[in-house]
């Protein structure tokens, strides 16, 4: 019996090893380490949720979809002008009609022709309630999408919609291949018109892209791009140092000194569109008291905080930041400057030192840091402030349901348009959703609506300037700083195009 057992065991052993060998060979293909290979690996701290621009709304997923899909228009980061990408031009025969002419001869990566039908298909899908697209609101003002001819699509709105083209530059408004979307799940198997196409998912979560040789412009130089998930940013930096990863973005201020010391790494920074600010819950005492908000504004040493960011933040007192459409430098002087003596005085005079205030923050590093510093500064001014940190998901819910007194918030603003900051964040229509502070001011509402419903861009700028100054005097929010996009890349990687939104394109990138 013993002998038969041994035989049986050996047989099984051989069999399993053979099986194990087969099953895992598939995933261990390219580990060639030649520097000359046109391959780059990017490290992200959270996983890629999915690869459909319609169904995702997180920055990590967009960093991948940016390479695969393209939008009709894009914002030139040098001139801040909106230019055509898949579209040739846009015309307004009347303020409610947008006639968009598309470029000719563009094909999706699956060979489907890019035309007006594809645009209509994509936009209809985003707007369809059954799709449950997270950014359906982006195209909400559009009433109908008509195909005039294969090269022309007509968008009709009920009211004039000024930021229309800005909305169309948003990465969630990128055009997908209708044929592919009907056939497969774009979350796993994406097809766009972009310079890179999806190749494989490795190790269950790393996304691998390869060059799209038939790209409608000159083909990209990189042959392969890997998006690798590395949850701890310190580990990611170590990987960058040892060459296992070639670049990463959103370097934190805490890690910047370490990254700067690395000989093999270059850091690129670009003043960006995100704004970080302190929001008041306007439905609660004493936050609805203008004196209290003033006291907080005097108490916050935002300048001191921005210094701690080591160049990864821009100090500006304007809510509409310097990189946004609608910024006006003259508004800077309208804001309250740090003055701790004045803060103490107001706090004392109004008895603000008696009430316990909760400062709510999401438990991600950036927000926690802000909360920690401002809690200390407000305590210094004599207020009683307690920090409450929540996981991201719980934070979103708590902030939208108004379960806070103060909260540190941010808005990344991918469209780069001031209306797209003021409307979601401060318009009364969005109170209790994106307008977490539940600020309701008919005067501001009107200015925001005018900035949206005017098609003349110069006129829009005027409305935005007025709206911004109203915000600075009424203080439903206190701007703290404006984000700086950053990329830390190995010396051998060149030509990554970093945009003010923090997104980047690898189209022109190459390795030396």
């Amino acid at each position, binding site marked *: *019996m013993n002998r038969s*057992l041994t035989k*049986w*065991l050996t047989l*099984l*052993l051989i069999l*399993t*090893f053979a099986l194990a060998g087969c*099953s*895992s060979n598939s995933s*261990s293909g390219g*580990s060639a380490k030649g520097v000359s290979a046109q391959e780059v690996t990017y490290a992200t701290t*959270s996983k890629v*949720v*999915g690869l459909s621009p319609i*169904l995702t*709304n997180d920055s990590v997923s967009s960093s991948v979809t940016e390479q695969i899909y393209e939008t009709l228009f894009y914002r030139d980061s040098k001139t801040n002008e909106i230019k055509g990408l898949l579209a040739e031009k846009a015309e307004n025969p009347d303020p409610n009609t947008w006639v968009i002419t598309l470029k000719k001869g563009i094909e999706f990566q699956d060979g489907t022709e890019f035309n007006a039908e594809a645009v209509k298909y994509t936009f209809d899908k985003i707007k369809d*309630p*059954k*799709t*449950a697209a*997270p*950014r*359906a*609101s982006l195209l*909400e003002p559009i009433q109908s999408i008509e195909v005039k001819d294969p090269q022309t699509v007509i968008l009709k709105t009920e009211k004039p919609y000024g930021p229309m083209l800005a909305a169309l530059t948003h990465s969630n408004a990128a055009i997908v291949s209708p044929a592919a979307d009907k056939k497969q*799940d774009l*979350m*796993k198997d994406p097809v766009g018109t972009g310079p890179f196409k999806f190749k494989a998912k*490795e*190790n*269950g*979560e790393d996304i691998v892209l390869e060059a799209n040789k038939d790209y409608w412009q000159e083909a990209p130089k990189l042959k392969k791009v890997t998006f*690798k*998930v*590395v*949850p701890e940013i*310190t*580990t*990611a930096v*170590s*990987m960058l*140092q*040892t060459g*296992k990863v070639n670049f990463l973005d959103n370097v934190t201020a805490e890690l910047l000194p370490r990254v700067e010391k690395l000989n093999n790494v270059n850091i690129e920074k670009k003043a960006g569109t995100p704004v970080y600010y302190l929001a008041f819950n306007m439905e609660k005492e004493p936050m609805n008291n203008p004196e209290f908000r003033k006291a907080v504004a005097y108490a916050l040493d935002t300048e001191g905080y921005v210094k701690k960011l080591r160049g990864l933040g821009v100090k500006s007192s304007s809510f509409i930041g310097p990189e946004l459409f609608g910024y006006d430098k003259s508004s800077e002087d309208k804001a309250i400057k740090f003055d701790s003596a004045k803060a103490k005085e107001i706090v004392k005079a109004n008895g603000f030192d008696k009430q316990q205030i909760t400062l709510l923050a999401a438990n991600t590093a950036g927000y926690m840091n802000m909360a920690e510093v401002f809690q200390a500064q407000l305590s210094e001014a004599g207020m009683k402030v307690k920090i409450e940190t929540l*996981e*991201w*998901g*719980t934070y*979103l*819910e*708590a902030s*939208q349901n108004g379960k806070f007194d103060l909260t540190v*918030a*941010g808005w990344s603003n991918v469209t780069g348009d001031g209306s797209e900051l003021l409307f*979601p964040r401060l318009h009364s229509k*969005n109170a*209790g*959703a*994106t307008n977490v502070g539940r600020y309701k001011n008919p005067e501001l509402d009107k200015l925001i609506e005018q900035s949206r419903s005017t098609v003349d861009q110069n006129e829009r700028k005027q409305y935005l300037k007025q709206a911004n100054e109203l915000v600075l005097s009424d203080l439903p929010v206190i701007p703290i700083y404006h984000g700086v996009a950053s990329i830390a890349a190995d010396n051998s990687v060149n030509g990554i195009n970093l945009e003010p939104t923090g997104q980047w394109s690898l189209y022109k990138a190459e390795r030396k």
Partner: protein
Amino acid sequence: MSFYCFLVFSLFRITLEKGGRKLLGLIIRRMLQLVLLLLGISFIVFMSMHIAPGDPANIIGGPTATKEDIAGIRENLGLNKPILVQYFDYIKGVIQGDFGFSFQTKESVSEALMSRFPNTLNLAVASIIVAVVIGVTAGIISALKHNSWFDGAATVISLAGISIPNFWLGAILILIFAVNLQWFPVGGLTEPFWTIEGMKQLILPAITLGTGSAAMIARMSRSAMLEVIRADYVRTARAKGVKEKSVVLIHCLRNAMIPVITVIGLNFGFLLGGTIITEQVFAINGVGRLMIESIAARDFPMVQGAVLLVATLFVLVNLVVDLVYAFIDPRISFD
């Protein structure tokens, strides 16, 4: 994967041949218990995820989504149905082998788990190997050189070993061995474990995770060895003139294995917990990390699936431990 399946399977096979019906009864009983246990666990996890604040639709929508956007996503995820209906739908699916789809990534839960599970299992097994090798060696030497300086030092070091926070140890190991000395890669588990590259990737995380268990095993195998050394039959063997080495190896080791196996069984839950942190620090794409991410994203189906997998594993490991007992020590019965 198939390697482990083979190990477990052949173990069952061997024990069955040895123990016969009684063992079969034990296995069947345990399996029935497992089903009940899983039902209980799934219910608790399901309810607690629904009670917990934080709305999955809100997370998918992100801060930029409007109320209408979020309502649409909720409806789409089927979250508007009564909780019990959702639970029974889920259980119905599970019985048919369908663990549902991730809310967040829309991938199939069973596929997602299966793609990550081998990484976690390799990490856990590697750390057990590290723990057993270090622990048993230290334990045996301490017992043989009882009351020597080595014994004292080993005791202190092993107690210190249990006391190190493993995320701290991991960070420091990366700093020294991966970044400064560059002996091992910083993180990731991408190559198969039998290749040199794969082993190199496993070493630092395995040490990080295995230190605590190594210390525990060292302590237990030391006392077990001491007991055995004094036992009569070892004295007899010595008196009969059997060489010291073979006395230690044959008689003692076999008996000292039992506490070691106990520790492995007891520690397995602890180890799986430890993988959560180790995977996080070393960027290993395993079930533990999937679990943290899914809890944070309120990805209910994914959390459910992962918890059920871990619980099943825990019960199976304990069953295997019991079977191994029988294999090593024929005196143990299964009543």
